[in-house]
């Protein structure tokens, strides 16, 4: 057997509970600070406005482009290279007095007079109203996903598990948002999709550990709850890491080979996966202790033996 993680004894994760909670609290506060202080660099999906991607045959004259567009009366124009020197990204805000739908043609006209060798790769124009709606719906989606997960876990496990998992997951989400705010990476609809996927993925992690905790509570009669949790985390550690590695491989492939369009999506997932492993193990489980999980919460009555239950309480 080729094993990367041959743990014979349970690692006393819970003994470091205070330290790990402090670390996660610090990262969490940092993210909240970043969100508050820098704010998200919202993409055109959410703010409304126009984003154009144009491609030049030779390397693009950024300054000339910027001047040419400014001359047409646009202010707050962002012109930058992306991907290569030939590809240029132009961001324009909504402008009064101009039918926004005609912006792209106008700009292309201006660019073509300067350099005929320019082609339009992509235009995104979004009205302010639509952007606002997307933003609100995105927030609603986030809340509903969290609520759905809590209800399911409360039903399948117990409310302490549900709340712990939800907090741990929101912790991941806030950290992704915080990093996007801190580095001012562009936050658009696909990134939001990525974050919502992380929410689903990260809860997956917590559930695997919880599942083992529940099983251990039934089988390990003489141990304390912290020991049980340590043992559950240790025995699922190998799986946790391997699953993360394989998911991370796919996501990294997206990050490296997926091109510009998938880049920020993959970035959100990468952060989510890295913090997911941490939060499921070192945030969710200490929270269980904090909420005072006891053996009785999981085993209702000694007399209520379930059908097919073995002497040790396990169901095979």
């Amino acid at each position: 057997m080729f094993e990367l993680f041959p743990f014979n004894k349970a690692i006393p994760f819970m003994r470091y509970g205070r330290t790990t909670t402090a670390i996660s609290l610090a990262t969490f506060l940092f993210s909240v600070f970043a969100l508050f202080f820098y704010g998200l660099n919202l993409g055109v999906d959410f703010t409304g406005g126009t984003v154009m991607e144009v491609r030049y045959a030779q390397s693009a004259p950024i300054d000339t482009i910027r001047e040419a567009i400014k001359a047409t009366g646009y202010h707050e124009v962002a012109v930058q290279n992306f991907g290569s020197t030939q590809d240029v990204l132009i961001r324009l805000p909504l402008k009064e007095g101009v039918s926004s739908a005609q912006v792209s043609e106008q700009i292309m006209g201006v660019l073509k007079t300067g350099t005929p060798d320019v082609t339009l790769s992509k235009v995104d124009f979004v009205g302010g109203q639509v952007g606002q709606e997307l933003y609100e719906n995105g927030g609603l989606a986030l809340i509903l996903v969290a609520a759905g997960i809590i209800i399911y876990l409360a039903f399948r496990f117990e409310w302490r598990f549900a709340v712990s998992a939800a907090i741990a997951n929101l912790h991941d989400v806030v950290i992704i948002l915080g990093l996007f705010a801190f580095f001012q990476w562009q936050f658009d609809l696909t990134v939001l999709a990525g974050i919502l996927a992380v929410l689903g993925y990260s809860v997956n992690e917590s559930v695997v550990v919880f599942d083992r905790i529940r099983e251990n509570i039934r089988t390990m009669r003489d141990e304390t709850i912290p020991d049980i949790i340590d043992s559950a985390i240790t025995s699922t550690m190998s799986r946790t890491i391997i699953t993360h590695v394989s998911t991370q491989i796919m996501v990294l492939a997206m990050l490296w080979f997926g091109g510009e369009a998938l880049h920020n999506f993959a970035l959100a997932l990468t952060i989510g996966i890295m913090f997911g492993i941490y939060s499921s193990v070192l945030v969710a489980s200490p929270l269980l202790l904090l909420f005072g999980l006891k053996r009785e919460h999981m085993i209702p009555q000694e007399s209520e033996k379930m059908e097919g239950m073995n002497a040790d309480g396990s169901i095979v």
Partner: protein
Amino acid sequence: MNRYPLWKYLMIAVILLIGVIYSVPNFFPSEPAVQLSPKTEQAIDPATMQRFEQALQAQGLTIRASENNGQQALFRFEDTDVQLKASEALKEAVGDQFVVALNLAPSTPSWLRALNANPMFLGLDLRGGVHFLMEVDMKAALDKQIDRYEDEFRDFLREQDIKYLGIAREGDTVLAKFRDAASRDAASAALGKEYQNSLQFTALPDTNDLQASISQTAMLDIQKFALQQNITTLRKRVNELGVAEPVIQQQGANRIVVQLPGVQDTARAKEILGATATLEFRLVDEQNDPMQAQQSGRAPLGSQIYKERSGDPILLKRQVMLTGDYIIDASSGFDDNNRPAVHITLDGKGATRFNKVTGENVQKLMGVVFIENKIETKEVNGQAVKTSTTTQEVINVARIQEQLGKRFQITGLDSPKEARDLALLLRAGALAAPVYIVEERTVGPSMGKENIEKGFNSNIWGFVAVVLFMVIYYRVFGVISSVALAINGFFLFALLSMIQATLTLPGLAGIALTLGMAIDANVLINERIREELRAGASPQVAINIGYERAWGTIIDSNLTTLIAGIALFLLGSGPIKGFAVVLCLGILTSMFSAVTVSRAMVNLVYGYKPHLQKLAI
């Protein structure tokens, strides 16, 4: 212990076969083709097909294959060069009767197509084209309806022989003035009966006025109708543009999505889609002097000042003889003097009406008013404000020589192109209310190609790396897990193809992510088996317990992810929705492939060895 009954193996084999059959069409490249569809409802008969083929052969173009399903004819060609030439040749040959569109037809073998195994549609981000999100101006729809009521009241009261002083619009209501309370009450009773479902009538105190306001349900009906009418109209217009596989769908209560794959000329597309052009026929007020009216800025009673193309003012009667709503067909051409003209055909009701009014007014002058609505969105103090501009122009004034009927023509247009555009707009019907574009996305064809290549490559690279890792780490069980993962990929593709999902870039990302996550179930199983072996269980028992115990965990963890996916699907729009569909389906297929399919493989490899000593895990 680790043996499946025969039926279970057979069932898995059948599902596998179905999965392969329905996912395979996606791997055939698409061929350049030209699509022809008739503008009217008529079917394409073999003789017409032959005509098309002859037209192509006359140009020396080789047809690779041709199809005709009655509604549409499709010709496939060797390369895009021939395709473009063919499109030109066909346009020349078939004239005004057919819409010719460039298309990319899947090269799926016919026996697969016979099984209804078709490839997924590619989203615009993967093949290029334009996407519009249009909002219907509901205020305008309501205004139009109120104006219509105003006209109808006049006609109705005249028919009923109830005398009124005046009928005018006031805000969102129509106000009818009467000489005395008796005639008001008579009108109220008659109108109330006629419009009992849609209008509420209130007698205003201290006057003899009657106020009509639209009821809440009628208002919703008006909005629903406006949206439906606009979708129908947009569909007709898009068809006239000659776009293969367009998408025109309702989104929400007042928005319409229009996707035109392959279209790059957004300017023209927007012009045609967004314009609300209609015609009105009105009598010219010949008694009064238009110049004088223009100077004073006041039109005589019952008339309105309009402008002619030349800029000269002209006075037209307020009463409309005919509106564009009754026009059922319009085609461009030339009149006897070789000037551009639009030939118009009216429906039965319109023809009767037009016949009557032109009959009553022979030898009088009639003006044709061209009305175009344009809507612009402006940003004022951070708020998006819509302003609608309406241009009304008299394009033609002519003396009514005789009673006009079902067919007639209008002239006075600037160019043949304008005649063509007007004919197109009239033919496609008027928009019930103006629409304006709130979202526009254009993806160039090369960008689409690049997106699909990169997205696909990243999936392949990721998959290869995961397989390598799994095989090294879990050996035989790693191989089995990898095969199960590949099968999962096939299942996912097959399901997406069966429901004819549209594959987009976020969808491709979703496939990658679900493949990455799908391996989780196998890892859970393999780790459990290892644990059991470590605890001293015999190989056969370890396999059995490993699968059984892992199952509960797999259910819990996947169902929570599924909940997230469903919420995403319900709330998301655009890219999020596409991603959510893939995520949800991927979870379902991975649960099946990771548990049932991989177990079947393990059973076949190890289950029939009674004295198994060691597992390669």
